């Protein structure tokens, strides 16, 4: 029984550690499918994290904090969208600038909150499920936001592949000129997609600062935003693969925590690096089918559209 409990705890930790990556990557996936490459995910996550923490610490409401984190992320992406879509600035350069901007802004917003800790609410009580031992322990241990993330994954997948607006979005990312000729608003679709990506990155940041480690630390996303961008590319713009990659990242993160605590004499810096390296390596291998990648790549990714 003890072993089973240990495994369940590991699983909970894995899924929880993977949640911010899932959120940020799914958001970036939608933006990239519409043909916009936003490299500012890291910055948007940081701003989301700091705003969410500040609001949650001031108001006492975690939910309000999370919502504000999402809004902050969306606002950041709106700036990006305006610069790249309306002013046709280079997407790569603008995205990099957005990240640097986000690092600074988040440090400023969070400066008054260093050392503050949040009161964490008790675990979610779901009737019926709580009675089933193992499954119950697993499901109970997850954060509510993780459930939301999993639901969002199915929503995004359904939206992209089954719904008409999703079809439109993919068409816009593929051949914007033809989409324009049919009569779609290319810029409108892209604005919405980029802002969805920003909101998701904001929530991802909020998850880190409000639920995962309920403290604010400068630069606390530690490159997860970059991994989210890489994940989208290496997962060949496929939502299911993104989820797999995020879980892998979460799993290796938890694993290296345990190795660290086991004191095997491996430098901690090396262990901290492991999740990033492992995620990239595995995704590169599973996505080495060139024809498939080409087929999935949004053809107009990072190409400005002039109506």
């Amino acid at each position, binding site marked *: 029984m003890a072993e089973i409990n240990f495994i369940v705890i590991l699983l909970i930790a894995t899924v929880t550690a993977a949640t911010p990556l899932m959120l940020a990557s799914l958001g970036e996936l939608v933006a990239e499918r519409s043909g916009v490459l936003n490299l500012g995910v890291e910055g948007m996550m940081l701003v989301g994290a700091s705003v969410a923490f500040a609001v949650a610490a001031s108001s006492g409401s975690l939910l309000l904090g999370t919502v504000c984190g999402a809004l902050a992320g969306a606002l950041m992406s709106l700036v990006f969208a305006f610069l790249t879509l309306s002013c046709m600035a280079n997407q790569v350069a603008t995205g990099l600038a957005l990240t640097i901007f986000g690092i600074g802004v988040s440090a400023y917003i969070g400066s008054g909150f260093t050392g503050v800790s949040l009161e964490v609410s008790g675990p979610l009580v779901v009737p019926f499920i709580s009675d089933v031992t193992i499954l119950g322990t697993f499901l109970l241990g997850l954060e509510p936001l993780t459930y939301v993330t999993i639901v969002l994954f199915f929503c995004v997948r359904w939206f992209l592949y089954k719904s*008409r607006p999703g079809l439109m979005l993919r068409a816009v990312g593929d051949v914007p000129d033809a989409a324009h000729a*049919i*009569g779609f608003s290319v810029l409108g679709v892209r604005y919405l997609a980029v802002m969805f990506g920003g909101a998701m990155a904001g929530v991802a940041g909020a998850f880190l600062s409000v639920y995962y480690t309920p403290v604010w630390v400068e630069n606390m996303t530690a490159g997860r935003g970059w991994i989210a961008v890489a994940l989208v590319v290496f997962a060949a713009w496929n939502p299911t693969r993104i989820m797999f990659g995020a879980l892998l990242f979460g799993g290796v993160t938890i694993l290296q925590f345990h190795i660290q605590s086991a004191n095997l004499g491996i430098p901690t810096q090396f262990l901290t690096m492991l999740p990033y390296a492992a995620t990239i390596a595995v995704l590169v291998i599973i996505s080495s089918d060139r024809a498939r990648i080409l*087929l999935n790549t*949004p053809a107009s990714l990072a190409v400005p559209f002039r109506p």
Partner: protein
Amino acid sequence: MKVIYGVARPDAGTILWEGKPEVVGSPAYARRLGIGMVFQHFSVFPALTVLENILLLSPKGTRRQELAARISELSQEYGLPVNPDATVGMLSVGERQRVEIVRCLLQEPKLLILDEPTSVLTPQAIQELFVMLTRLADAGHSILYISHKLHEIRQLCDTATILRHGKVVATVDPRQETDASLAHHMLGTLVPSLSKGTSAESGAQRLIVESLSRRAETVHGVDLENINLTVFGGEILGIAGITGNGQAELLEAVSGEWQSPSARNVCIDGTAAARLGVTRRRRLGLVYIPEERLGQGSVPGMSLVKNGLLTVQVGKFVRWGVIRMDAVRQFASKCIEEFDVRPATYAISAEALSGGNLQKFIVGRELLQAPGVVVAAQPTWGLDVGAAQSIRQILLKLRASGVAILVISEDLDELLELCDRIAVMANGRISEARAVGETSIAEIGRLMSGEHEPVPANAAGA
């Protein structure tokens, strides 16, 4: 046409639709009015499936299964076979156009605009398309048919308006005209008719493809099965067939983009070359004029000077590891001059040229390298009559000098006019090459639809 379909706006003038002046502000509005259009430069989405492409233009709430059923129904009715679940990016140019035509017909338009629709059809399928168009016209639909194939216009249309450089030059009853008189209106001058000249009859086997087989690498690719062909010096061998029957795969195998494991599959002037890369085959005297002019034949954003350098053996223009720009410029100028590229400036980027002028430049660039074997894919696709004719004339001149030329084209008239012998590709196989005089359009058409082998009931289409 773009104005009628709402893609571009007129600077002046009005459009009368069913007696009322209309401002067609958007393609969606045009579709609501009942105007459907099949573009020459396709407006399909490569990353989406055929079904999704069509779904995008269907009214909201259309169910996927119903639409799929209607697509197969329609495509069978008109002999335009398309697989609704195929990803468009995997389809050939011809198949993509088929998707466009089907997409248009599904909207049951009152006015159907077709821009050069027949270039991808077999002769039989063209006749069926004409029957279908006539049927649509009889049922009260209007059809605006844009083509440079004059005999099609004469056969199909009730009235013809001839445009030259954006101006209406004549409106005629095409049934009363001849090809020559229509061409005269179009060009303002008389079309230079092709003078075929005599072939050099060197008789040497310059390009041999021998028992070449290849598995398809993409989901919708075609397997090549035991391809054999020989092109003699001083001869033009044509390969007819609808795009997507293995031509792309064969071209890659001949040009060197794909290398066969067995070296004797392709021989260039007696050298087994099937395992050599593109550059080494070029050194053997093979040049390749690809179908895609922008992107494969040239780099769109680069000037003609730089594009001129791309396929030329670099050694000629490099000294001490530095490109001798003056020599490259000279080469580009020579190419522009000899092949009458307009505007006659080498500083212009490839994408700024018209299709015909760019093709002349690409052909010129290759021919100035004194090739022994020329492989040309759809050399006149999408060109106007004048440009197409000059490309053909260049190829004929080359033939007279003893070069072996392989032309792959969907334009059967072109092949019949140009070639000494014609073979037909269907389903990844090739028929035996026949001398042009000993074959007929009907026979080629039968071969094109794959009738020399057992075919499933509805796959033949035409």
